[in-house]
């Protein structure tokens, strides 16, 4: 039976947001998504294993894209920077996760299909 070609654009994965699809930023958003009240700069640095400079750079990109909001205030006479995911950021991150899930599920389906004939071959050699 001939295999049907998938619909055009089936594997385009256009929802893979370029801003989010970067290891450090993905890691930052995942940390922030699990902390709705936000995280201090120092905590984010530790959780994502980033340097001060790298963290600032990625946070600025996320802030400019409206994914993250950054507040600076004084706590015990010391400045504290807190980062929080915005409502739009949470939505975009969830959309991104859905697309990422499709990508991985597609790859898993292909890997399973490739593995199946090989398993059959091995089974064929097995004693009855």
């Amino acid at each position, binding site marked *: 039976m001939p295999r049907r070609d998938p619909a055009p654009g089936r594997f385009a994965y256009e929802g893979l947001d370029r801003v989010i699809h970067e290891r450090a930023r993905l890691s930052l958003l995942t940390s922030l*998504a*699990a902390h*709705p009240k936000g995280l201090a700069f120092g905590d984010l640095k530790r959780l994502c294993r980033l340097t001060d400079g790298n963290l600032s750079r990625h946070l600025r990109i996320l802030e400019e894209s409206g994914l993250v909001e950054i507040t600076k205030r004084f706590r015990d006479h010391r400045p504290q920077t807190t980062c929080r995911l915005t*409502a739009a950021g*949470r*939505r975009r991150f969830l959309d991104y996760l859905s697309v990422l*899930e499709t990508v*991985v599920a597609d790859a898993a389906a292909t*890997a*399973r299909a490739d593995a199946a004939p090989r398993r059959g071959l091995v089974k064929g050699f097995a004693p009855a």
Partner: protein
Amino acid sequence: MLKDLDQALAEISAIRSQIARSVVFRGYGPATVATTGLLAVVAAAVQAALLRDPTGNLPGYLALWAGAAVLSAGLVGVEMVTRARRAHSGLAQEMLATAVEQFVPAAAAGGLLTLVLLAFAPEATWMLPGLWQVIFSLGVFASCRFLPPPIFWVGAWYLTAGLGSLALARGTGALSPAAMGVGFGVGQLLTAAILYLHREEGGGDA
């Protein structure tokens, strides 16, 4: 490679579940919850009118309140699915699973406790209204983190009403309509009021 991909899928699912736990659940609608409170009051009125001696007609008493509970659960359940899909589009499945996970153990414990008392300790069935409310309070406390914070007081109400019922309603007043009507009527209406007042909180976040 397949193992790595399955692991990646499991990790994505874990991230979603983690996010779901940090978002206020908006699947419970104030109007429907208020309806279940009114249903409790109506059931109490039906009991007062038609079941003068609930201790002597325990199957009738249980049928009335089990019917009210099933109808309420059905109403809340159907609305919960539709509201969650609308309010938490990307997270609806995880949020619904968490809501069920938090409340179903208490509901199941209440049902099983009823069966066990009926089968092995029928002399203790006078405790059922109080026990149901105490168990319901545990379900509410379990769901607290997932709902607007004042819902804690609903749990406290059910616990107080349940313990009060156990302490005060013995003998002829054991299965009085007020034990259930007041407990669940006030509790559900209080829940509806809190949900209504906090309806915009955490809005549009998922």
